[in-house]
């Protein structure tokens, strides 16, 4: 069954930009790749207590997967589900590549375009983008955790060697997150640090914000594995009395 959000707001984030917002439990966020090879860096924090945040090791190990996709939940370090991936055309989002840093430009041979030259086409780094958004909530470097790279996929061989898959994301690919608690969402459209493009690519995404009904026992994420049912049980306890 497809989960179709009731869309209330549409916008777009051009390539190489960043944004954050608080989204309530029950809100949905759909990202639509405008071009092949898009990347969206994502971090999540509890809006109520930002010390509780996205924890990718917990997320991967409790669902026994290296690749996140439809049916997977995004867990906080406190054993609760912050968001669920309810729709996903892409199948596999990178949890170990981290962010493009200011030090990568020279090594990659990417031109650094300053504001005075490029105005809003300047080349921002994902690392600095996240620090900017974190600072708006009184958070900083110490709060920087491992980010998810939506639309990007890394293959792993038996020795653990990583390979970026440049053809993974097609134009029009969609990912929908449903938020299970009130969260602060940090996102940027800076390129993946392993993107082999000859120069810094500006690839934007369309954004749709809306609402989705709460999950029932047949929900694609809640019923995905026994672990996710227990994660939602932890959410239920957290929300007791609401």
């Amino acid at each position: 069954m497809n989960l179709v959000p009731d869309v209330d707001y549409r916008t777009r984030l051009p390539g190489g930009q960043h944004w954050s917002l608080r989204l309530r439990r029950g809100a949905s966020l759909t990202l639509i790749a405008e071009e092949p090879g898009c990347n969206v860096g994502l971090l999540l924090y509890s809006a109520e207590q930002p010390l509780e945040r996205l924890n990718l090791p917990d997320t991967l190990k409790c669902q026994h997967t290296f690749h996140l996709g439809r049916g997977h939940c995004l867990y906080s370090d406190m054993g609760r589900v912050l968001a669920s991936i309810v729709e996903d055309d892409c199948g596999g989002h990178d949890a170990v590549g981290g962010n493009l840093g200011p030090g990568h430009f020279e090594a990659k041979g990417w031109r650094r375009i300053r504001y005075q030259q490029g105005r809003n086409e300047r080349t921002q780094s994902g690392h600095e983008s996240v620090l900017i958004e974190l600072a708006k909530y009184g958070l900083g470097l110490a709060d920087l955790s491992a980010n998810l790279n939506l639309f990007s996929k890394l293959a792993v061989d038996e020795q653990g060697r990583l390979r970026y898959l440049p053809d993974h994301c097609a134009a029009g690919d969609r990912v929908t997150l449903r938020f299970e608690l009130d969260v602060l969402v940090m996102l940027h459209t800076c390129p993946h640090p392993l993107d082999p493009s000859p120069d810094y690519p500006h690839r934007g995404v369309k954004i749709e914000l809306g609402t989705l009904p709460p999950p029932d026992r047949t929900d694609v994420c809640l019923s995905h594995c026994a672990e996710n049912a227990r994660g939602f049980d932890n959410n239920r306890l957290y929300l007791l009395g609401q």
Partner: protein
Amino acid sequence: MNAPSPAQDTAPMPPLARHLIEAGDHFIGRLQQGQRLRIVDLEGNQAADTLFYNACDVAERYSAVDTVREQGSLYLTTGSVLRSTLNRPMLRIVDDSCGRHDTLGGACSSESNTVRYALDRRHMHSCRDNWMLAIAHHPEYGLTKRDIGHNINFFMNVPVTPEGGLDFAEGISGPGKYVELVSEMDVVVLISNCPQLNNPCSGFDPTPIELLIWRH
């Protein structure tokens, strides 16, 4: 339980310091730039859940994603450079008789145990509880929960399967196996010697580890 035997000291110089960390216990301490740290898996099959911080500014700390990306590989072994959240080298692995260390699995916590195993496993001892006690007992390092991030599991084996699954496999470590690191900056070392009893990462029998520190 038998008393743990001290590690075989194969280095020519006696260490500056030795610390025995009992099963389910923790360690916090400093390592100066250029100092050498050996972590010994005394009885084998143990997991040493480890975090490193820049001692001058603990907001900069070990970053699993920067480490993994820059070396192009998931696992850690001799030659691996452990990198910080500012993508700077913190420590370098210079010797490793185990062969592979995990960067993906993170540390157990009472909260994640409820998800992974059963809601009533909350009370069981965990690595993140160890770290909380370490930072509570040692406020002089300036660490709080916000500094607790994605760690290394020395001696732990978490391979990615060809299908993209995560496998919590039997350990590939053994009695006396060790990993040795040289610090590239002054660092704070925070270790939980994993008390996990729910999965085979420590063979359902957590055992002690030992730290040896040399000046160079």
